[in-house]
C-alpha cells in the first residue's frame, strides 16, 4: 500500500517508494523535489523565502538554502548517492498584480532563482522547473519514477 506524505509550509519530508510526497497550495513558495531514482527514495521541501541570511533564528525550513541543506543531509543519510541525485521544482508564482504598480523584486521569482542557485551549489541537476505564472499549484511527487504531477485550479494538470 502506498501512502501520501503531506509536506506542510516551511517543512520537508522524505519518502521511500511506494509512498508519494505531496504539498498543497504553492503560491510564491516553491516545492523542491530531490530524489535518487535507483534507490527509489527522495524528499520534498516547501520553502517560502530565498535565503536565511540576516534572519534571526526561527524555522530554518522556511528558507531555500537551509531547508535544502537539511533535506539533503537526511536523503544522504538514507543511503542516497550524491551523484545520482536529481531535482524538480514547482511554484514561484506572482499571484496578485496591482494596476500601475510593478513590484521591483517579485518574491516568487527571487525564490525560484535562489532555489536554482542552491541546487547548482550542491551539484544537483535540475530536470524540471515549472515556475512563475500567476496561479497556485498543488504537487505530488513519486520518488520511484521521478514523476511530478502538477495540479492547478484553472490552468490544467500535467505530469513532468
Amino acid at each position, binding site marked *: 500500500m502506498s501512502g501520501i506524505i503531506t509536506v*506542510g*509550509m*516551511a*517543512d520537508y519530508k522524505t519518502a521511500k517508494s511506494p509512498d508519494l510526497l505531496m504539498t*498543497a*497550495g*504553492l*503560491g*510564491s*513558495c516553491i516545492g523542491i523535489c530531490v530524489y535518487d531514482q535507483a534507490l527509489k527514495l527522495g524528499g520534498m521541501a516547501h520553502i*517560502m*523565502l*530565498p535565503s536565511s541570511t540576516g534572519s534571526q*533564528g*526561527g*524555522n530554518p525550513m*522556511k528558507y531555500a538554502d537551509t531547508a535544502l541543506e537539511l533535506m539533503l543531509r537526511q536523503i544522504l543519510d538514507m543511503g542516497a548517492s550524491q551523484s545520482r541525485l536529481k531535482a524538480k521544482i514547482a511554484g514561484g*508564482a*506572482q*499571484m*496578485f*498584480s*496591482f*494596476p500601475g504598480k510593478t*513590484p521591483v*523584486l517579485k*518574491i*516568487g521569482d*527571487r525564490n525560484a532563482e535562489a532555489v536554482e542557485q542552491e541546487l547548482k551549489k550542491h551539484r544537483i541537476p535540475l530536470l524540471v522547473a515549472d515556475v512563475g505564472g*500567476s*496561479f*497556485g*499549484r*498543488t504537487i505530488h511527487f513519486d520518488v520511484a519514477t521521478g514523476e511530478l504531477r502538477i*495540479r492547478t*485550479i*484553472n490552468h490544467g494538470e500535467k505530469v513532468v
Partner: protein
Amino acid sequence: MEVTQCQLDALREIGNIGSGHAATALSTLLQRRIDMSVPEVWAVPFEQITAIVGQLDTPQAVVYVKVEGAAPGKAVFFFPVESAGVVVQALFGTSEERDLFSDEMAQSALKEVGNILVSSFLIALTEFSGIPLQASVPALSVDMIGALLDAIFLEEGTLDDTVLFIDTQLSGLPKIEGQFIFLPDEGSLEKLLGAMGL
C-alpha cells in the same frame, strides 16, 4: 514585539468595531442579513495558517487591499468560490451563473465588494484610533487559498516568526460565508495601540 493580554483585547475590539462596520456594509449592499463572528486575534507562525483557512488548495475568491497611511497594513477578504458566486448573483439580481475565473463583470463586482468592506473597516478604525488610513485599489484573484495567502504574507520577502492578525468570519443566508483578515505591517500595531493609549 511582545503582545500583552490587554493589547490583544484592544486588537479584538478594533476587529469588532471594524468588522461590524464591514458586515453592515455587506448587508446593505446585498440586502441580506449578514452575521459576524467574534473576531479572533492570532499571533502564530504563518505555517499554522492551515488551522485558520483549512485545506490549502481549496479555491477561494480573494480580494486583497493594501492599507495606506500612518499605520499601514494589509486587508484581505476571502470567500469560497460558491459563496462568491452567490454574492455576484445577489449584486446583479439574477440567478445566472458566471465564471469567476474569466468574467470581468463578476470580477469587478467582487473587487467592489472587497473595496466597500475594507473601506468601512478602515473608516471605523480611523475613527477609533484617530490615525487616518486609506485603502488602495483592490486586487482580486480566484485560486488556491494557500497560494494566495502565501503571496500576500510573503510579498515583501520577509516573514516574522509569528504573524499577528485579526480574523473575522462573516456569514449570511443563503450560502454566503466569508472571512476577513487585517494584518498590520511592522510598527503599525504599536502606532494603533499607542493612539489608544495602550
